[in-house]
């Protein structure tokens, strides 16, 4: 074996012994195994994409790019377009990101910068993270029975008095963009806050001390030093939260109204790619299935694009932070 050249070096009295053949074999096998599993993960993703892409192929060749720009969904006449769904997906996710991101980051700051005693901090952190443990159907129910009735008077007032603003152009009948986005933002809040919290608490203490040592107030230190230092992590949290929002299905299917609408109005019903799939896939026939797969592919592409952009920005930002570039 490879170690033969050294084994004769060992003094007979020494306890040290070179690794046995068994140890070396185990090492090789185990390492091979983990590598195999790593490739398995790759394979799974590849399979998912392949599956969706091949199934979508007929629809892609038939409908082409028109699919992305057209807005009718007519099974009868086989006219398909997902522009309203793409709009709804992006609009609801962006709204959710705006709300969930703001609250998530605020919370992360509040819970890492010694505002509260440890125990209280711990309690709040857990409460916020427990939000992630609530299944999305339950959020859907909560949206229907709590959020919508609560929003109805507010929305009514806004529409009556500020109807000239495009966001309040229509009245809220029930399901709609705003309730969907609100629930969605609560669903991504724990992701955003947990990861931002990690990023913020990983900011070296020495930097914080440096800022305080220069006579910065707590918030000057937070805004001037701590948040910028953690910014890559916070950005990563937002990207992940956005990704979650794009793919969320059930709560949206229950709340968004599933209507092929494209409107800036917060109270108008809309549709998202994921809820389109949820509603149509179970009964999609031979003709409709490729089209749905095409829609799925677009959803996948959007998620992927967001992730890749995120990774790209992160890479550059963190390189700059490390001082690698000028």
């Amino acid at each position, binding site marked *: 074996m490879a170690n033969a050249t050294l084994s004769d070096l060992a003094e007979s009295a020494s306890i040290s012994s070179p690794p046995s053949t068994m140890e070396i074999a185990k090492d090789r096998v185990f390492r091979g195994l983990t590598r195999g599993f790593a490739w398995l993960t790759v394979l799974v993703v590849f399979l998912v994409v392949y599956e969706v892409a091949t199934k979508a192929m007929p629809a892609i060749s038939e409908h082409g790019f028109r699919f992305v720009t057209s807005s009718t969904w007519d099974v*009868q006449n086989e006219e398909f377009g997902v522009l309203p769904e793409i709009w709804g997906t992006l609009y609801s996710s962006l709204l959710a990101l705006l709300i969930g991101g703001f609250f998530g980051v605020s919370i992360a700051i509040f819970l890492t910068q010694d505002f509260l005693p440890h125990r209280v901090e711990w309690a709040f952190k857990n409460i916020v993270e427990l939000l992630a443990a609530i299944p999305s159907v339950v959020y859907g129910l909560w949206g229907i029975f709590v959020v919508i009735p609560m929003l109805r008077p507010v929305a009514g007032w806004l529409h009556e008095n500020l109807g000239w603003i495009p966001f309040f152009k*229509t009245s809220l*009948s029930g399901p709609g963009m705003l309730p969907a986005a609100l629930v969605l933002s609560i669903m991504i809040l724990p992701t955003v806050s947990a990861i931002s919290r990690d990023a913020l608490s990983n900011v070296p203490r020495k930097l914080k001390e440096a800022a305080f040592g220069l006579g910065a107030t707590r918030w000057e230190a937070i805004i001037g030093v701590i948040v910028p230092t953690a910014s890559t992590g916070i950005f990563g949290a937002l990207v992940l939260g956005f990704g979650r929002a794009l793919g969320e299905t059930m709560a949206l299917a229950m709340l968004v109204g599933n*209507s092929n609408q494209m*409107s800036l109005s917060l109270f108008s*019903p809309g549709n998202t790619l994921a809820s389109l799939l949820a509603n149509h896939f179970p*009964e999609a026939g031979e003709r409709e299935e490729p089209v749905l797969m095409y829609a799925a592919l677009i959803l996948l592409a959007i998620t992927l694009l967001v992730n890749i952009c995120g990774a790209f920005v992160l890479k550059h930002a963190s390189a700059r932070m490390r001082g690698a570039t000028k």
Partner: protein
Amino acid sequence: SSTSSSSPGGDSGSAAQNIKLQGSGASFPAPLYGRWFKEYSAATEGVKVDYQAKGSGGGIKDFIGHTVDFAASDAAMNDSEIAQVDDGVVLLPMTAGSVVLAYNLPKLKKPLVLSRDAYSKIFLGKIAKWNDEAITATNEGVDLPDLPVTVVRRADSSGTTFVFTNHLSAISKEFADGPGVGKSVSWPESDKFIAAPKNDGVTATIMQTPGAIGYVEFGFADQAKLPMATLQNAAGKFIEPTLENATAALAGVEMPEDLRAWLPDPTGDNAYPIVSYTWLLCYEKYEDSSKAAALKSLVKWCLHQGQESSAEMGYIPLPENVVATVTEKLESIQ
């Protein structure tokens, strides 16, 4: 591809034991089926029947994909769908029911009365407010609110939609030329059209949304205690959606050979205008003969003992002659 959902332990040896029949499809008759199958399973040793309501379209898809033993649809199956099933298809009408327009106008004391013109306009998105002239004309003395009309439609592919659009297309040329007939059609684009899955979903959404109106199977609205509109029929009469009136509508149907009979616009003075049969979809040939036998005895049970509970749950029991035809047809299953 075969119906391999046979019970894992049971081979043909212990055939009498542990047969499971899996079905899926229409939500329209789901409450009735749920009750039938549960009662039948309880009464029959060694046979279990399970049914999942997911909409007629979903049932047909499962049926074509052989992921179930039988399916249910209130639009039966069209020819191209039938062509996709290698093992042959037997369509069996099991019961009938009416589609009603349920609405949420809490302040209304009397039931809403809608002319053909009014309700076809509503579903064409042509009526914005409840106090529109088209509605007030037939509802004298009723204080209709100045509330937007929110239409709740099906999000999934549905037999109920088929029945309803079939009817609307029959009475309104504009509808026939616009959305047309189908299990899912392209409804007018409006922010006042919202969609929900299954009959359950539409019912619940109507309940949650003031000013909403939608089409559901009678039993759902009835159970939910939602008010239902009185509709004008082909004869020009305004008819309440009662079991009696629905039965009257079915009276004039001729059963064709393949048992696919629709009545888009029943005639007759007392006929409630929107009614339909609902079908069980079975294969002609089953690999597992014990399964075929179990299915046959299930259907027989439903056609006889089962019909007794139909009326009780708001469905229309099949006329004698139809029961006879269906029983006969049943024999083609092997």
